C-alpha cells in the first residue's frame, strides 16, 4: 500500500504520454522589431534622432518647414508601454538570459525584484504572447531559487456532461458516443512558479484562472502537459473544506492538518498558535457545527496558514468574512510574502494584484496572454475589461492585430521619403502584425491627421476588409495626387473586424510626412492673382 501513491499520485509525476505538441506556429522575428528602440524598416530617413520635438506645431506656419524636414521624426515610443523591454536598449539584450542590471532589490519587498524574480515565464514561442514574456529568457528558474511548481504545455479539456458515460450501464451500452462540445478550459500553458513568488492569476470570469490554480495545485489533472509540484501545498480554496461538523474544533484542526501532510508532533507544536490566530480558544472544544460561519472560516484559515506551506493557494478567499478578518488575511498573506513563501492568488481585484503580487498571469479564454509585471498586466486587464475607456478598445500592443509601423513613399514599396509636393503621388504603407485570434477579415480606417488631431481625410480598405492570416502584412494606401494642403501630417490607424464592425485597436503614429509648396506659409495652396487696383 505504501508505495502505490508514488508514480501515479496526482501532482507528483504524470505519465509523460501527454507531452505537449510543438507550437504550431514558429515565432516570427517579432521580438526584435517589437522593440520600440529598434529602428523601423524604412526609417532610414530618420537617422537615429532622439529629438523629442515632433508633431505639435507642425501645422504652424512658423515651424512646419522644420517639422517637415527629415531629421525631426523620432520613432517615439512610450517607455511605459514597454516596461519589460524598456530597460534594455538593445532588443537582443532583452532576450539574454542574463538579465543585465536593471532594478535594485527592494528592501521592503524581497520578492519585488522585477524581472529576474520570475524568469520562469512561458516559452516565448507562443503566438499571442507579449509583454514581459518577450523580455525573459527560456523558461526556467534562476539558480538558487528552486521552482515549486513547474507546468509545461498544460491544457485542460472538460468533457461535456452529455457526452460522458455517467453510469456503468451507459458505459457498456453506449460506447463511443458522438464527439461533443468539449470545452478547453486551458490551452497550452507554460508556467514555472519559483520559490518566493507571489503570483496573481487574473482574467475575466470563465477565463480559466481557477482551473489553472487547481491544475497547478495538483488537484486537477491536465488533459495534456506536465505539472510537477514540489513541497507542501495549503489551499485557501475553500476554508474549512475538510471540517466535520460533528467533531470539535480541536479534532478538526488535527484532522485537517493531518490531511495537509502534518504529523501529530508538528500539529501539537502549532496547535496553540492556530487557536490563538482564530481567536477561538473559548470554543475550541465545541462541535464545529455550533460555530458561526465566521468562526468556521477563521478556523479554516488559521489551519491553512499555520501548516507551514511551501505554496499557498488563495482563491477569492477574501470575498468572505468581515472587514477585520479580511485585513487579517491580507496581513497574513503579506507576512508570507515577507517570509519568502510562494503564494498563488486568484482574484478579481486588480488593486490587490498590484499591491500584493510581484508577478501576474493573465488568462483569456484559457490561454495565457500575459505573464509579467502586475502593473502591466492589470493595465492590460483593465483595457480588456473595458474599464479604461479613454484608451479605446485595446491598446495596440496587446491587440490581436497590431499596427507596427507606417512609412511613406511615392510608389508602393518604393524608396521612402517624407517630403512631398502638392499633386505628387503618395503611398501610406501600414504594416500590421496579425496574431492568432485576430478577426478573419480586417478592416482599416487610416486617418491623415493634421494639427490638433484634426482628421484631414480618411482612407479605408474595400468593403469586407482584407483576409489576413497570422504574420506580417503591409497595406498600401495610394493617393495619386496629393491635395494642395500644406503642412505636416500624421497617421492614425483604426483596426476593426470587418465582419462585425467591432473595433480591435487604434494606433496613432508619430511619423510625419510633409507637403510643402513654393509658398511655405498657410495650409492650402490656392490659385490666386495679386493685383493692385487702379
Amino acid at each position, binding site marked *: 500500500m505504501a508505495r502505490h501513491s508514488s508514480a501515479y499520485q496526482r501532482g507528483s509525476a504524470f505519465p509523460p504520454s501527454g507531452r505537449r505538441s510543438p507550437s504550431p506556429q514558429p515565432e516570427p522575428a517579432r521580438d526584435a522589431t517589437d522593440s520600440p528602440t529598434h529602428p523601423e524598416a524604412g526609417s532610414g530617413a530618420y537617422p537615429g534622432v532622439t529629438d523629442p520635438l515632433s508633431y505639435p506645431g507642425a501645422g504652424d506656419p512658423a515651424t512646419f518647414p522644420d517639422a517637415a524636414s527629415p531629421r525631426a521624426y523620432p520613432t517615439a515610443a512610450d517607455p511605459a508601454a514597454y516596461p519589460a523591454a524598456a530597460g534594455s536598449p538593445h532588443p537582443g539584450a532583452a532576450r539574454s538570459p542574463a538579465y543585465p*542590471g536593471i532594478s535594485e532589490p527592494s528592501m521592503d519587498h524581497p520578492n519585488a525584484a522585477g524581472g529576474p524574480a520570475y*524568469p520562469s515565464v512561458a516559452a516565448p514561442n507562443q503566438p499571442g504572447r507579449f509583454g514581459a514574456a518577450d523580455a525573459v529568457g527560456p523558461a526556467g528558474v534562476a539558480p*538558487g531559487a528552486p521552482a515549486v511548481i513547474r507546468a509545461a504545455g498544460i491544457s485542460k479539456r472538460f468533457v461535456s456532461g452529455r457526452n460522458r*458515460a455517467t453510469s456503468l450501464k451507459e458505459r457498456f451500452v453506449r460506447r463511443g458516443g458522438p464527439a461533443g462540445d468539449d470545452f478547453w478550459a486551458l490551452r497550452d500553458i507554460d508556467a514555472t512558479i519559483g520559490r518566493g513568488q507571489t503570483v496573481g492569476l487574473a482574467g475575466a470570469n470563465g477565463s480559466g484562472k481557477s482551473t489553472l490554480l487547481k491544475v497547478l495545485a495538483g488537484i486537477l489533472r491536465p488533459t495534456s502537459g506536465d505539472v510537477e509540484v514540489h513541497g507542501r501545498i495549503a489551499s485557501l480554496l*475553500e476554508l474549512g*473544506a475538510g471540517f466535520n461538523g460533528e*467533531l470539535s474544533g480541536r*479534532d478538526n484542526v488535527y484532522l485537517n492538518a493531518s490531511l495537509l501532510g502534518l504529523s501529530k508532533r508538528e500539529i501539537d507544536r502549532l496547535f496553540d498558535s492556530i487557536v490563538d490566530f482564530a481567536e477561538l480558544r473559548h470554543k475550541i472544544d465545541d462541535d464545529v457545527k455550533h460555530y458561526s460561519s465566521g468562526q468556521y472560516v477563521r478556523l479554516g484559515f488559521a489551519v491553512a496558514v499555520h501548516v507551514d506551506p*511551501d505554496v499557498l493557494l488563495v482563491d477569492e478567499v477574501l470575498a468572505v468574512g468581515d472587514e477585520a478578518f479580511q485585513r487579517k488575511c491580507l496581513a497574513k498573506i503579506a507576512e508570507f510574502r515577507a*517570509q519568502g513563501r510562494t503564494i498563488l492568488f486568484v482574484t478579481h481585484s486588480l488593486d490587490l494584484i498590484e499591491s500584493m503580487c510581484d508577478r501576474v498571469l493573465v488568462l483569456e479564454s484559457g490561454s495565457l496572454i500575459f505573464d509579467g509585471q502586475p502593473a502591466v498586466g492589470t493595465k492590460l486587464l483593465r483595457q480588456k475589461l473595458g474599464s479604461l475607456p479613454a484608451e479605446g478598445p485595446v491598446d495596440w500592443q496587446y491587440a490581436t492585430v497590431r499596427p507596427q509601423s507606417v512609412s511613406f513613399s511615392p510608389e508602393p514599396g518604393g524608396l521612402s521619403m517624407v517630403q512631398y509636393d502638392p499633386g505628387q503621388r503618395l503611398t501610406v504603407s501600414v504594416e500590421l502584425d496579425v496574431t492568432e485570434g485576430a478577426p478573419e477579415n480586417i478592416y482599416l480606417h487610416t486617418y491623415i491627421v493634421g494639427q490638433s488631431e484634426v482628421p484631414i481625410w480618411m482612407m479605408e480598405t474595400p468593403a469586407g476588409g482584407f483576409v489576413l492570416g497570422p504574420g506580417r502584412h503591409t497595406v498600401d494606401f495610394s493617393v495619386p495626387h496629393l491635395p494642395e494642403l500644406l503642412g505636416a501630417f500624421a497617421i492614425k490607424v483604426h483596426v476593426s473586424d470587418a465582419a462585425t464592425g467591432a473595433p480591435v485597436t487604434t494606433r496613432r503614429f508619430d511619423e510625419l510626412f510633409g507637403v510643402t509648396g513654393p509658398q511655405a506659409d498657410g495650409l492650402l495652396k490656392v490659385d490666386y492673382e495679386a493685383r493692385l487696383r487702379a
Partner: protein
Amino acid sequence: MSRLTDAALPPGNPVTSGTAPQHTPAHSADASRLARRSRAQTKVRWELLRNLVRKDLKVKYKGSSLGFAWSLANPLLILVVYTFVFQIVLKSQVPRFGIYLMSGLLIWNAFSGSVSAACGSVVANANLVKKVRFPLAVLPLSAVGFAAVHFLLQLLVLFVVILILGYSLLGPELLLLVPAGAVALTFTIALSLLVSSLNVRYRDTSHLLDVALLAWFWVNPMVYAFGLIQDRLHEWTWVYLLNPMAVVVVSFQRAIYDPPPGNRAGPTTVLADMGYRFYLEHLAIAGFISLVLLWVGLHVFRTMQADFAEDL
C-alpha cells in the same frame, strides 16, 4: 547590484530572514525536503489513516450514551435471534448454530461493510477532494480500517461468549485466523479501491454493489453447512471455492467453531475439512486471486483518481 545576483539569492537571504527568522530554516531547505513534503500530501500515511478511522469512530459514537457497546451488542443480538430461528424454529442440524453462524458472519460483515462504505467514500467527501491536495486512497482505506476495528472488537466479544459458554476455542486451529485474515484484508482493500473509484464516475456502481453483496451473502456457507454444497456440487466444489470470501469463511469456521463429534450434523459434514492442508491450499489460491484483484483495484484507482475532482 545586478539582477542576476538578485535572482540567485536563496530565499533565506538577509532581507527575508530579518522579518521571519523562525521560518528561515524551513526555506533554506533543499529540494529533497520539498519532495518529502510533497510526498506527504500524495502518499498514504499510517498516521493520516489512523486519524481518519478515529474520526469515523468518534463521529459514529458521539452522543450515544452506550457508545461502543451498541456495535458490540449487535452481533450478540444476531447470535440470539439466529440461534432461536435456525436451531429452535427451523431445527437446523448444525449444533451450536449461533457460534457456527457468527464465526463466518463477522468476517463477512466486515467485508461487506467495508466495501459498501468505501464505495461511497470518495463521493461523500467531494468538497475535500475538489479543494484539498491529499492522498485520495485514504478515503476508501479508512472505510476498511473502520470496519476492521469493529470486526476485531466483535471477534473479541465472540471469543468471550464462547469461553463463557464453555466451548473449546483455544487450539492450534486458531492460527488459521492469520492467513485467513490476511486474505480477507487483501481482498477487501482490493474491492474497496475498485468500487470507490468506479463509483465516482459511474454512480450506479453503489446500487449494483448492494445487489451483488446481497446475492453474494448466500454463496458463502454461513447460515448453512459447507457439507451441503459438497453434497450438491461434488467434484465441482472448487468452483464454489473460487470465491475468496467463501474460503475465508470456511477457514474462520475451522479456526473458531468447535465441530460436533465426527464433524457431522445429520447426513452432512459441517466443516469443510478437519485438517489444515485443505484450508491453506485454498487460502493460497484465494490469496492469489485477491492479489490480482488488488493490482487491478490499484491500477483503476490510480488511473481514475486524477479525474476525481473533475467528475465530482
